[in-house]
């Protein structure tokens, strides 16, 4: 042990002396530079440090920083992973054409716009240059056509999150084509894509995108039971499904989701007027079935279960069926302040209550006993 200690101490001393010698020679060569090998100028700060600072500023300042010197430009172009141009009220298309080719490492690109500016050539540029893109937001890009989807399918196969809500010009064949290539999709927002979201497209998504967890089909009134059923069978990891305004679906869609997607926690059925009690009872029973199977497998997951349910305007439902759903899923609440069961317009469901109301009722009934 003594020898070991001495050796270690000697090693450290030698290293330190060598460093001092280097510093000394540095002093003799350059009178000004005191620390050879130590960073003395801001421009020589490590790239990861520069990128950490720039990750805290807005994108405009990032562009200005790339004009400081060549070294910074190269560092920024290589290191930037996230870019948002949603603030740009004009010239977004030209901006994408000039900027995106320089950011080869982009992983997140936000191009949501309130006024349609984006055109197919911009998306084509994105697809040709950003092969590592994972998150893309093209909301409200009314001008985009199927060409954009075909380009994205070929160039950005690692997409995990795609938002094309409001892109009403897309067709279902193009969306199906994209689904067959972008198989890692987890989050897909098709709200308002009436032409794109058809049973054909949903069947492709169910066939290829088996990791899907979140799907928004709001107001896609061409969606039918065939599409949703195929989706439910192909994507068992679904957690969030929004079918608001999908007026053509019936109980079969809900039954398929209830039986095939054990992790479902949020379901939107706003204005789905064909939904009847059969769908509600299947939701209620799915919890019982999952619990049994969970026990067999050795680990029932208490985290599972519906937390949000929107059945507004589903006027065919009866109180007993909806109450069964509430009893199965304690996370569904009707009490004020915690509305996770939304049933606006269902005038006959006033007697439905969550577990909180039951507890309150029992507490009230126990009060008279001490009076005796």
């Amino acid at each position: 042990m003594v020898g070991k200690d001495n050796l270690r101490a000697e090693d450290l001393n030698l290293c330190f002396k060598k460093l001092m010698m280097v510093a000394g020679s540095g002093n003799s060569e350059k009178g000004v530079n005191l620390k050879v090998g130590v960073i003395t100028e801001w421009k020589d700060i490590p790239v990861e440090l520069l990128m950490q600072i720039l990750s805290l500023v807005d994108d405009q300042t990032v562009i200005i920083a790339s004009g400081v010197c060549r070294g910074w430009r190269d560092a920024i172009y290589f290191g930037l992973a996230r870019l948002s141009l949603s603030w740009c009220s004009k010239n977004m298309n030209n901006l994408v054409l000039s900027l995106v080719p320089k950011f080869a490492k982009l992983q997140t690109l936000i191009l949501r716009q309130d006024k349609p500016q984006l055109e197919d050539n911009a998306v084509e540029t994105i697809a040709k240059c950003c092969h590592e893109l994972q998150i893309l937001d093209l909301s409200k890009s009314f001008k985009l056509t199927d060409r954009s989807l075909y380009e994205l399918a070929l160039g950005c196969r690692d997409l995990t999150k795609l938002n094309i809500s409001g892109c009403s010009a897309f067709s279902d064949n193009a969306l199906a084509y994209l689904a067959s290539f972008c198989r890692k999709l987890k989050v897909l927002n098709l709200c308002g894509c009436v032409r794109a979201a058809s049973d054909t497209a949903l069947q492709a998504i169910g066939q290829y995108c088996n990791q899907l967890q979140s799907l928004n089909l709001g107001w896609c009134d061409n969606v039918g039971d065939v599409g949703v059923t195929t989706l439910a069978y192909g994507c068992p990891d679904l957690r969030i499904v929004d079918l608001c305004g999908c007026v053509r679906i019936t109980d079969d869609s809900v039954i398929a989701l209830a039986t095939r997607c054990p992790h479902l926690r949020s379901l939107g059925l706003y204005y789905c007027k064909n939904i009847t009690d059969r769908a509600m009872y299947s939701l209620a029973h799915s919890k019982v079935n999952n619990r049994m199977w969970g026990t067999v497998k050795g680990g029932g997951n208490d985290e599972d279960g519906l937390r949000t349910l929107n059945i507004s305007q589903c006027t065919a439902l009866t109180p007993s069926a909806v109450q069964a759903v509430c009893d199965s899923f304690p996370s569904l609440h009707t009490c004020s302040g915690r509305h996770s069961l939304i049933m606006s317009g269902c005038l006959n469901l006033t007697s439905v209550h969550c577990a909180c109301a039951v507890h309150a009722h029992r507490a009230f009934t126990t009060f008279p006993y001490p009076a005796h």
Partner: protein
Amino acid sequence: MAKESGSSKIEMLEISNEAMAEAQSSKIEMLEINNEAMAEAQSSKTVTMKPAEAEESKTETQKITDEESKNVPIAATEEESKKLSITKVEESKNAATATTEGEKEEAKVSLKTLDGVTFEVEAWIAKEMETVQAYIDDTSADTSAAIAIPLHNVAGRELARMVEYCKEHRRASVSAGNLKEFEERFAAALNLYEMKDLIIAANYLNTKKLLESLSRCIAKAIKNKSVEFVRDYFGVTNDYTTEEEAQYRETNAWAFRNVDEDSRN
């Protein structure tokens, strides 16, 4: 074999600076005795700075002062001296507190900086510096207690500021308001070059909280500012050609619209 334990005596010298009118020079001796129940014999090792090394440190300090005086206007030098004096006083208080705490807690870590100063810090402060913690994890337990860890890229002034930050941060983290106030006060006391040296040291030692705090301050300073301002702020030389810069500005004309007018030259 029987273990041998030694007692070591370490001197920490703070060299007074002529440029600081109210600077105080203090000499702190910290005596640390290792108690071993099974110790049969004790051998003492004395570690003192050699006169040559001391002179070398003085020379370095003098040159550092010269370098600083070139960069800082003369009017600001006096204010800076006052700030540094306050910092020195605070450091003395912290050192005294550390001595008191050291008697209670036995876990201490020795850190030796680039300019030869050795710091005794509590183990929880060393844990904040992930590079130091990784070194301790890689070293066997019996030797790490006795040997000072060399920090080749960190100067004593930066390390003192980092230790101060860790202590004050822990004290202030009781409430969010105090924490924010402390971070703003800490950053306001630094000039540009001190900020640079400190963030590079924090990056090297991987002190995450300090690194994030300083990054936020710098990001705030350059937001909505012009290219010229950012160049001056960081001291970066423009190596673009005139044509390159003109083309850059034309391509990204949109980025220059909302720039603060005051930041233009």
